[in-house]
């Protein structure tokens, strides 16, 4: 077998291990999937009636506003679900590092990258399932995506790329943490960052510097692209390119950082 096929086989073994661990420790998965769903309910039923009325072209206060806001906020909460799953990744990487099992892996004749690759593969799968579950709940609440077949394909592609970026970044955050507690706190900013973007309210309603930040942070082009893909309207090329570039960039930085951290002696 070539070294690449060995690396793939080891990574698959490690990914299976991580998926098995998620099944054995379902409370964390339930929490990470459940939290964004709660946010969706909160934003639609508590704030939606009023916030929706303030959207450009939004309906009146009450049921109309709620329906408009459900359309508007769903992509942001999908992103939030990926960020929450990333938090779980950081925790499980840190847990692994504090246990002796990783030292065992390092003394075995396996592909050195497979330990982290296994985490990433397992987490991306978990993240996609969480986002899928959230979309289903949104549909249950009355959300009607208008994406074409090609649009769905592009959507899954972008969601996978984003999940990959968030996961590699949180693998690094999990490695840089010296305890599981730190690892659960560090990626918090990823869950809050969508708020400071176009996910919940249009950025032009924000004060100057904040609006500038909101327009230039990575989640905004991602959320905007998701929103147009889901609604089936025409995608803005530059925004989509920015979304892909941010995701790819964060993936590369997260990967290189994680690899450096994993290779150091402990």
């Amino acid at each position, binding site marked *: 077998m070539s070294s690449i096929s*060995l690396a793939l*086989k*080891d990574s698959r*073994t490690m990914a*299976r*291990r991580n998926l*098995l*661990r998620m099944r*054995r*420790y379902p409370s964390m998965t339930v929490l990470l999937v459940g939290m964004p769903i709660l946010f969706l309910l909160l934003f639609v039923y508590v704030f939606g009636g009023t916030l929706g009325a303030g959207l450009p072209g939004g309906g009146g206060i009450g049921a109309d506003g709620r329906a408009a806001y459900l359309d508007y906020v769903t992509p942001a909460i999908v992103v939030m679900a990926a960020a929450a799953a990333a938090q779980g990744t950081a925790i499980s990487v840190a847990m692994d590092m504090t*246990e*002796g*099992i990783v*030292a*065992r*892996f*390092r*003394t*075995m*004749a*396996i592909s050195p990258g497979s330990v982290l690759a296994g985490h990433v593969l397992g987490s991306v799968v978990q993240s996609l399932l969480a986002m899928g579950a959230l979309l289903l709940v949104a549909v249950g609440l009355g959300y009607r995506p208008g994406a074409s077949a090609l649009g769905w394909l592009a959507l899954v592609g972008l969601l996978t790329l984003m999940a990959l970026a968030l996961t590699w970044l949180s693998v690094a955050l999990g490695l840089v943490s010296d305890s599981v507690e730190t690892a659960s706190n560090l990626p918090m900013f990823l869950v809050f960052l969508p708020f400071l973007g176009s996910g919940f309210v249009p950025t032009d309603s924000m004060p100057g510097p904040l609006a500038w930040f909101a327009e230039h942070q990575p989640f905004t082009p991602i959320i905007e692209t998701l929103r147009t893909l889901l609604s089936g309207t025409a995608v803005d090329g530059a925004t989509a390119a920015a979304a892909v570039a941010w995701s790819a960039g964060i993936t590369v930085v997260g990967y290189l950082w994680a690899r450096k951290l994993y290779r150091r*002696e402990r």
Partner: protein
Amino acid sequence: MSHPRPPAIELTGLRKSFGDRVVLDGIDLAVPAGSVLALLGPNGAGKTTTVNILSTLMRADGGRAAVAGHDVAADPFAVRSSIGVTGQFSAVDGLLTVRENLRLMADLLRLDRATGQARAAALSERFDLLPYAAKPAATLSGGMRRKLDLAMTLMGRPSVVFLDEPTTGLDPRSRRDLWDIVRSLVADGATILLTTQYLEEADALADTVAVLDGGRIVAQGTPAELKRRIPGGAIHLHLPDAAGLDAAARAFPDGVRHDETSTYSLPAADGIPGLRRMLDRLAEHDVPASGLEVTSPDLDDVFLALTEPGRVAADDTRKAAR
């Protein structure tokens, strides 16, 4: 059988520092294939660092280390395929069951399904793990978890096995079980390097004991050789009654009386002539001894005699270095 085999583990001038703290200050060791070397030393002596370097977890700052004929720095991958490591901290996946942990090893070792299952079944049987096959490893007792840990290490049939304080924290029965396992590994031809703080353990298992202190090997030899190197030991006289003990006390005022066991202990005799003089004196004083027992110093005496002065010296040099 007497054909000399090349050493399975060979260290020359191995050095390692963490910052300005010297942990290994030039270690030389050779472990013949099929033998057991016990690395004995107090906490912080450098035992775990040695194992970490040999098992490719750490790089040495200087010197050379070879395991199973492969240089650990130049060819870590080849070393890894020959070794098995059971460290001080449990290296099992607590969320996975016993069976899944063993399966994970089989997959990472790229064993085919039948071979993997056969090895897992044989090791589970040998380590009494069968009743726990479907239990998550986190729910096992310390002793059982250590056995699973070792079973996972042995899935790859390593020719060189590193055991870093394998029985620390285990109850006496689990410790004995583990000793039996180590002996059976040696019988199967494996080479073992084990670190321990328990002299009894080194005495029970090792062909060679190397005493590590302050980053240096301060003594090396068979357990018997090490015991002979230092003074100590005692002669215990067995006496029938209190009157006998009184007689012994008159003959040897420097002895220690043990009424509960009806024995009288003397410092070790100075070789055979000393023993003869002692017997003459027993006759002169009509001491009614019914038997006697000569004990050599145990490894505890060796350990204390060898490590304490060395450690003080090492601490002094470290302070001076700062």
